[in-house]
């Protein structure tokens, strides 16, 4: 019997707006508990929510990037339940009229492309956070209360842990690209619930859906799915159906544990939010948002593979975030060797940025400067290792590469007379090595090249040094 796995996702994404969804409090992560609150986001009596227009824009951006239909008119609802970190006794969300509907995201390559349906995307507010101390005290932090979220609900189109991972990674890249979230799972800005069950190929028998909660990394998503997949398959084979339930993933024991039976689902008593007027979007507004969408990662990778002919590995790194991809492309406008540029960016540039804990936006030099530097190397004006020194100076804001090289006297020595003279000196000072070389010890040659380079203060043209050295040794 062949068994198929059916997976659907509910993904909460924290939007990176500067202020909360219904008030002007900051959304910065990691601030002192309860330092980012006001009467509105802690639901004080008499306070009223006013919708942050940016939140709608961001959600529409996500909807457009995920090929959704955007509702020209939608509204907000109240979802009712009691919880101490829920300040109003209800959460403001969208129920029957989400902002975005019926989209898709493609995963896989070539013939194996698969469309994963996006059922809906809606906006809502986050709740506060309960902290339980070991003295059995519950403390509440409302900094997150009112932080804007979108919930993305997929169709049950995914069929394996692998696919799910690919989907989530692709989704993460897109959301980061369009600049609406920093999508950090460890900071809770991307949270994923998985609905999973299995069915035999003819669809006649299937297990009941399990909802997996509290998955806080891509790794745990994969492991939890694999675990559940197996559990469901075994149960189905033994003809023992699972019960419809919510389970959580235990990261230490590597198992899922039942939290509650789905049958006792809460009656949320959804209700139209009277304090916020309908959200109306004109064609014009939607088009304006559309214009702000960048080329999405998948399209960019395809285009780069064709025009730059770079290895997949390079492309994946260079397109991993938009600013980097833009930097690469801007540099390519002044330079014509993609692979060489790719190497420089992946090694020198990214390493320096990491060391300095800097963002690519903070770079002092321009793409044009980097192109000029590589050009100087290609033309032999400076050699590769001097190039790295020049790069450091550029990084520190010392100016244009040519000027840096000139100022420091790093321009490569091309004068054969100068090189000849210096090399003769080196040979005189190292009779031992000369002897070694003539006795067939090749290592001595490398030593002599090194000494020559040192004497030329690194500015010698390496090819020239090789040539002259060989000639002198054979004299």
């Amino acid at each position, binding site marked *: 019997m062949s068994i198929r796995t059916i997976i659907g996702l509910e993904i909460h994404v924290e939007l990176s707006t500067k202020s909360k969804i219904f008030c002007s409090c900051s959304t910065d992560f990691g601030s002192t508990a309860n330092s980012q609150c006001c*009467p509105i986001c*802690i*639901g*004080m*009596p*008499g*306070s*009223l*929510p*006013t*919708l942050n227009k940016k939140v709608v824009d961001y959600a529409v951006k996500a909807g457009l990037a995920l090929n959704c239909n955007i509702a020209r008119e939608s509204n907000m609802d*109240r979802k*009712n339940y*009691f919880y*101490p970190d829920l*300040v*109003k*006794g*209800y959460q403001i969300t969208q129920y029957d009229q989400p902002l975005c509907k019926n989209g898709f995201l493609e995963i896989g390559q070539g013939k194996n492309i698969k469309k994963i349906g996006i059922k809906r995307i809606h906006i809502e507010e986050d709740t506060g956070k309960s902290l339980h101390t070991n003295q059995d005290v*519950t403390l*509440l932090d409302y900094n997150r209360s009112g932080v804007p979220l979108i919930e993305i609900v997929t169709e049950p189109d995914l069929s394996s842990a692998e696919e799910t991972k690919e989907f989530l990674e692709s989704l993460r890249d897109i959301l980061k690209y369009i600049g609406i979230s920093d999508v950090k799972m460890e900071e809770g800005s991307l949270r994923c619930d998985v609905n999973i069950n299995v069915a035999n190929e003819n669809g006649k028998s299937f297990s009941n859906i399990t909802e997996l909660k509290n998955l806080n990394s891509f790794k745990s998503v994969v492991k939890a799915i694999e675990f559940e997949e197996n559990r469901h398959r075994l149960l189905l084979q033994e003809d023992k159906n699972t019960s419809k339930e919510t389970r959580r993933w235990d990261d230490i024991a590597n198992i899922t544990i039942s939290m509650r039976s789905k049958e006792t689902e809460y*009656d949320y*008593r*959804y*209700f*139209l939010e*009277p*304090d*916020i*007027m309908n959200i109306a979007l004109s064609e014009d507004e939607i088009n304006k948002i559309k214009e702000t969408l960048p080329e999405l990662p998948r399209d960019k990778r395809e285009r780069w593979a064709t025009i730059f002919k770079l290895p997949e590995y390079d492309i994946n790194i260079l397109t991993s975030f938009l600013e980097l991809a833009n930097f690469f492309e801007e540099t390519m406008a002044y330079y014509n060797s993609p692979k060489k540029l790719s190497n420089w960016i992946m090694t020198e540039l990214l390493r320096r940025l990491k060391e300095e804990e800097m963002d690519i936006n903070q770079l002092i030099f321009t793409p044009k400067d980097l192109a000029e530097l590589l050009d100087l190397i290609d033309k032999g004006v400076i050699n590769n290792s001097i190039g790295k020194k020049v790069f450091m100076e550029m990084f520190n804001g010392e100016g244009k590469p040519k000027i840096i090289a000139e100022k420091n006297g790093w321009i490569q020595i091309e004068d054969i007379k100068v090189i000849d003279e210096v090399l003769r000196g080196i040979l005189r000072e190292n009779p031992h090595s000369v002897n070694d070389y003539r006795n067939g010890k090749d290592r001595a040659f490398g030593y002599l090249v090194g000494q020559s380079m040192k004497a030329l203060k690194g500015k010698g043209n390496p090819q020239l040094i090789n040539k002259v050295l060989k000639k002198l040794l054979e004299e």
Partner: protein
Amino acid sequence: MKLELYNLSMYEIKKKIEKKEIKAVEVLESTLKRIESVEDKVQSYLTLTKDIAFCKANEIDKRIANNEAIGELGGIPMAIKDNICTEEILTTCASKMLHNFVPPYSATVYEKLLMEDGVMLGKTNMDEFAMGSSTESSFHKKTRNPWDISKVPGGSSGGSASAVAAGEAFFALGSDTGGSIRQPAAFCGVVGLKPTYGLVSRYGLVAMANSLDHIGPITKDVTDCALVLNAIIGYDSKDGTSIKRDKIDYLKTLNGEIKGLRIAIPREYFDENLSEPVRKALIEAIQVFENLGAVCEEVSLPNTKYAMAVYYIISQTEVSLALARFDGIRYGHRALNYRNIEELVKYTRSEGFGPEVKTRIVLGTHWLSGDNYKEYYQKANEVRKLIRLDFNNIFSNYDVVLTPTSATAAFELGSSQEKSLARQKIDKYTVAANLAGIPAISIPCGFDKGLPIGMQLMGKNFDEETLLRVARAFERNTSLDHKPSL
């Protein structure tokens, strides 16, 4: 005999202060003296803010002495219903739940009144969380009708209406969810206005039923009403339902003619529930309008008969959610003994809310649960649209709608508990305006055995101008110049 200042209208007081005939402090002292002598009987206030009042009155006098400009309400003592948040002043909603709640922020309307230099006297009594029509569900005290202290002042803004009627404040703010400004205004013989939804910011008004709640003035006469309305209207970015419009000066057109104006008299509002004295007073009022050249015609508002049912379902539903935030965790009352969070919330709510509030929460929860949502709540909303449509149709032909405010004059204290159904019938003339969001005003139009009778005028959305002009025309051409003899 020296004319007591508290007997004057705020408009008259304003003129006297501006002309330097009297000082703001004198006005305040006169009002406080009045409060001292009648408050024991009337019980309008929950909190008095004498220090704040003196501070402001002195400041205003100083500014006038220095020939500095003062606001439109400069030096006028005012009262605020206790469900409107006032920074650093207790705001209890007349509930045990908020008995200790001092908001760290102010309602937009209160800020606006302070900007116009109103002098804050205190917070007035009300039905708990604005639920009731007699101010008897207050946790703290029972307010009495200044015309007859054996009668209720109406509700839920009973304290505001009685304070103005008794001369304990020159004007007061109330809130109106189904008639809570107009009905007590009618019972206390004063003017009460519920403005168009969205004209006056609700920010800082502790919600009862968000889509029906309004803030409005209770004043001695129509001119004062226009004066207060001028001060409190305007777009507020803190209220998502606030409407951007050009500001209007309601005093400008107030005394205009009403000749040729078309007044609709809906027959559904003149049914068998109406008491005879009220009917008589209204028929006389219609005569006054006709004498002034207005055209009065009988019309039909066919969906009015559903207004009460729809109002109860929608308001109770919204109540059940609006009050969900009172859990004892961040502010207000908290139960002392509990073992876990669930008990904390449960006991807090059980102890903090009074019976009227609990009843409505339970009913509201019921209207939303499971299939009831479709059966009741959705249907109620559909009928609400029909009621709006009724008014739209009428207003395509008429300028205002004239009805009674209440079927009877004020009733006995303690009588509303056992006659809750009868009381609901009393409310039935006012709720439709809240469902439709249109402006409505109640003005005194006669007496029944010494108790005031109110007439309600409803207008087109944002056409408070016409409403006030019609009300003022009636006031100018009638003489109901009695005062309660406290």
